[in-house]
């Protein structure tokens, strides 16, 4: 119940008149009328604040993206980062393994070449017996195909080492996704601070778009998802089922 200015003045005048005429009952009545106005204004204000607080809290609760982030994206990010660790680890081991295989091949070639070179030098200096020369010929005969074989093996090993570097692309795609998630979390936290600081205008919630064809980078849990092809063979099967 609110009084306008005229009503307030009227009540105030009546209050003064009642006090002057020692009419206590009338004075009390007028005083109640006047204070009631104050109280109802206060109640209104408290009511308004309560409503705002309630809305803020509901906004906060209903900010499904934030909940989604904590419930789904964060654990997902842990998996992604673990994928980065295992992928880089596997690539490093693969590379180191091929290095381990390649170094002895190079050493063998070098060692045999040095031996032959030494013998050849002795032959050129005419320091070699006929038997020694026969042995040298056999050694050279065995060495030449060995050079071919070892070179082929070294080439193959180097190619494998090169292929292992593909981890940089795969993990790079995953790290980019994590970076964009971190940015989103940052934005959400800024929103949260704003809500906690003061009531903000309600913003339209962005629905997470579901696009089946959108590029996602490497699948982290391919085995758990029947919609994802696990390897080249599955992709080939799908394509041939499409008449490809």
């Amino acid at each position, binding site marked *: 119940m609110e009084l306008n200015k005229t009503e307030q003045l009227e009540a105030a005048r009546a209050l003064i008149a009642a006090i002057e005429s020692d009419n206590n009952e009338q004075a009390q009545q007028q005083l109640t009328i006047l204070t009631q106005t104050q109280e109802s204004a206060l109640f209104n204000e408290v009511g308004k604040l309560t409503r705002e607080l309630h809305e803020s809290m509901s906004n906060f609760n209903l900010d499904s993206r934030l909940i989604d982030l904590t419930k789904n994206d964060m654990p997902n990010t842990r998996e992604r980062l673990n994928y980065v660790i295992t992928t880089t680890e596997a690539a490093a081991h693969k590379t180191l393994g091929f290095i381990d295989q390649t170094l002895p091949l190079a050493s063998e070639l070098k060692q045999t070449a040095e031996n032959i070179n030494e013998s050849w030098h002795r032959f050129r200096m005419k320091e070699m017996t006929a038997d020694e020369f026969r042995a040298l010929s056999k050694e050279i005969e065995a060495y030449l195909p060995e050079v071919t074989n070892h070179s082929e093996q070294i080439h193959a090993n180097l*190619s494998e080492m*090169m*292929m292992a*570097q*593909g*981890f*940089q*692309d*795969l993990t*790079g*795609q995953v790290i980019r996704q994590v970076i964009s998630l971190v940015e989103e979390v940052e934005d959400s936290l800024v929103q949260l601070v704003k809500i906690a600081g003061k009531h903000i205008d309600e913003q339209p919630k962005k629905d997470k778009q579901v696009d*089946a*064809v959108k*590029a*996602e*980078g*490497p*699948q982290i849990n*391919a085995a758990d998802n029947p*919609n*994802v*092809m*696990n*390897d*080249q063979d*599955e*992709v080939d099967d*799908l*394509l041939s089922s*499409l008449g*490809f």
Partner: protein
Amino acid sequence: MKILIVDDFSTMRRIIKNLLRDLGFSNTVEADDGLTALPILQAGGIDFLVTDWNMPGMQGIDLLKAVRADEKLSNIPVLMVTAETKREQIIVAAQAGVNGYVVKPFTAATLKEKIDKIFERIDAQ
């Protein structure tokens, strides 16, 4: 035979370039996404396109569609080399007219097999 390799990661472009060189294709050019690849294609002289899918700017699938939509480019064979392995994605790529689809991580033998297959088909036509 001039081949355009499109991937946003320079390491992957280098890997594909080296593999192609081993297969006897030493004439290659590179681009880091669809937007930079298109002008190279439009300038002419590219006989074969190898592209990633997931790239900033213009994605590989959109590059494929743009190539197929361009009268002058529509016959260029396109091999997609990508980590995208969802059923819908592979179907969309097939519908858009991709000639081969290699999933990362891949082997040198797989790349060779798919490239051979593409050229076999072209020769048969």
